[in-house]
């Protein structure tokens, strides 16, 4: 019976004690890097703010730049009118809705149309100095992966007042 032990003890050192050990350490290092990268919010979904302003209005967008499949997230748009805007419209690039579940838009838009693939939301008129916050809740379709245009434009009817260029990255 002891030969079962003797063969092991007298044989070459198992690979688990040399190469195997370093392979395990390398694998653990890779896993630790994943954790650090996640802690730094590189893998989503910390919200960040982008702003743009023109003579007629200021526009800001707070939304994550990186999301993952299935995640629920909010995009918050703030419009500050510097003069009266009779027909405020938000023009959302196709990445806002492509492969996304739109759970809610609050307050609701008065109307929704399409302009060259973009989605146009119409809102009630704004007085000079008035500020309006619009919250939009989304969920990412798990099969929706890649980079999407997340541009946002504020128009008064057909006239562009402010524009934010952004990209949304959807990780698999």
């Amino acid at each position, binding site marked *: 019976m002891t030969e079962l032990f003797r063969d092991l003890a007298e044989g070459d050192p198992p690979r688990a004690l040399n190469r195997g050990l370093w392979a395990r350490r390398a694998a653990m290092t890779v*896993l630790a890097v994943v954790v650090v990268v996640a802690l730094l919010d590189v893998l989503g979904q910390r919200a960040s703010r982008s702003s743009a302003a023109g003579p007629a209005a200021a526009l800001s967008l707070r939304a994550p730049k990186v999301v993952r499949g299935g995640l629920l997230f909010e995009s918050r748009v703030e419009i500050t009118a510097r003069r009266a805007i009779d027909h405020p419209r938000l023009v959302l690039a196709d990445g806002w809705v492509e492969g996304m579940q739109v759970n809610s838009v609050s307050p609701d838009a008065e109307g929704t149309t399409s302009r060259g693939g973009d989605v146009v939301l119409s809102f009630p008129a704004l007085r000079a100095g008035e500020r309006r916050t619009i919250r939009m809740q989304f969920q990412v379709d798990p099969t929706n992966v890649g980079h999407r245009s997340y541009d946002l434009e504020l128009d008064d009817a057909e006239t562009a007042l402010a524009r934010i260029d952004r990209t949304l990255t959807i990780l698999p």
Partner: protein
Amino acid sequence: MDLVLRTAFVFFLILIVTRAVGRRELSSMEPFDVILLVVIGDMVQQGVTQSDYSLTGTTTVIATLAVLTVATGYLSFRVGRLRPLLEGEPIVLIANGEIRREALRRQRITIDELGAEARQSQIGSLRDVRFAVLETGGQISFVTD
């Protein structure tokens, strides 16, 4: 970041729960315990990943669990004072042939259960046992005369 924090919270919550529940209960799985384990697993998944269906999220959670497991194992190995906290200590149930009833009571082990464990170790009588030790993994080791 939230995924890592939620995973770490659940990891330490499970660590505390397993230490609090006791090693015997966890080492001997009755059908009820198996079902409870599955239910807990499902609840933990909901709390950690929530609506996340992504491979990135899965990788992050698994990586976090792996790093925490290795880190606590390393701490337990390097820092002796943490070992009882992280892994527990062996508990002597029979010493020099004398049954320690207080230790049995505290570990919620009956004489019948101790006898059953002895039988599984091919020991015919507890009188033959010189030492019995409840190991940190929940198994009972026997030393006979």
